[in-house]
């Protein structure tokens, strides 16, 4: 008996035999299971959001494919100061229809002046973007350059929400000039001439299940909802949203 324990080859052989027997039976079991469960489909949820801009050809998806084209502005010879141009941008919940999940959405808007780089000495608040009804602006996250808007109710799968309605530039910029004085003349130069109005939109989506934790984990914002899942956002930070 002592010899048997002391012979490592025998122990190895016995071990291999046990493992082989085990794996064969496991394989057989798996095969049996597979054939019985062929009709079961399992897919994980897929949350997705897209931005669409209204053009002459209808709403067109933008983002990875291309940027904002401002079609109504393009119809004019030049961008007319003060004129409110229609600019319709909407968000669409294009999540996997098979799973059909709702999502919370928010849009981070960044606006600035741009020439050879960002013109940090010019005032972004002179660029006016009109946001559609149904969006809550969280002032705590806002600056003169950035605004963050939350859709307070979940956006259903396949549903859409208009976000942007128009764009304009304040007439005030025509009064903002720098002057160069010489002995014989005074030259004025418009501070905003040849500048670009630069708009960035970032749409974020997060699942509606376990809403408050999901929003906090994804966006770093402490929100309070009126239901654990799929609820309405009633508070962001310490501020009530209504």
């Amino acid at each position, binding site marked *: 008996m002592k010899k048997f324990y002391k012979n490592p080859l025998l122990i190895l052989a016995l071990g291999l035999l046990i493992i082989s027997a085990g794996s064969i039976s496991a394989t057989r079991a798996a095969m049996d299971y597979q054939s019985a469960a062929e009709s079961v489909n399992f897919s994980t949820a897929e949350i997705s*959001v897209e931005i669409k801009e209204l053009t002459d050809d209808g709403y067109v998806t933008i*983002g990875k494919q291309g940027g904002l084209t401002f079609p109504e502005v393009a119809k004019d010879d030049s961008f007319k100061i*003060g004129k409110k141009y229609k600019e319709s941008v909407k968000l669409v919940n294009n999540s996997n229809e098979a799973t059909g999940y709702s999502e919370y959405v928010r849009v981070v808007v960044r606006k600035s002046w741009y020439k050879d780089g960002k013109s940090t000495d010019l005032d972004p608040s002179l660029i006016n973007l009109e946001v559609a009804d149904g969006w809550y602006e969280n002032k705590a996250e806002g600056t003169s350059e950035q605004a963050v808007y939350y859709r307070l109710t979940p956006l259903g799968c396949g549903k859409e929400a208009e976000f942007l309605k128009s764009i304009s530039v304040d007439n005030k910029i025509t009064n903002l000039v720098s002057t160069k004085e010489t002995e014989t003349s005074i030259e004025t130069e418009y501070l905003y*001439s*040849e*500048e670009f109005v630069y708009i960035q939109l970032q749409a974020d989506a*997060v*699942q509606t299940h376990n809403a408050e934790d999901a929003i906090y984990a994804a966006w770093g914002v402490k929100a309070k909802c009126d239901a654990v899942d799929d609820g309405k956002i009633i508070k962001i930070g310490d501020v009530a949203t209504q």
Partner: protein
Amino acid sequence: MKRKWCLVVAAAIMLISVNAVKPAMAYFTDSVATEGKIKLKLGDSIPKIDEKVENMTKKITITNTGDYDIFVRAKALAPESCTITLTEMEGWSKGDDGYYYYSKPLAPKAATESQLILGINNSLSGSFNVIIVQEATKVLYDQDGKAYADWNAVVATENSYSTGN
């Protein structure tokens, strides 16, 4: 003994890592971004006047010589003994401030479609000057896209012509 401790530490790190990764992957999210730019052009345009004087009547055309849309107006500076009479022409009207206003904006290189016709009548004899001052201001727009002028910001030039005996 040392090896045993190493194994315990490695196991602990692994447990912590697994726990740390789990919540980060627990929520479904998506994000998409886009951007766009619009170029802005701002500047002044100099109005150029073209005058013809016939039979004590001035016929004035104003041209936009610059690169930007403008509104134009003109004023006649004359001695008190002079009476200036506007001949009704489409697009021109007299304002309460003594200026004659052209109602339509002028695109770059465009001229007023109708002439400003001013009749001059002097009750005294002798030589006198009637000076025409033309002014322009950039076209501004209200929210509906309707053009309007802000005459507090003007670009002005003047032409002086001697007329009469």
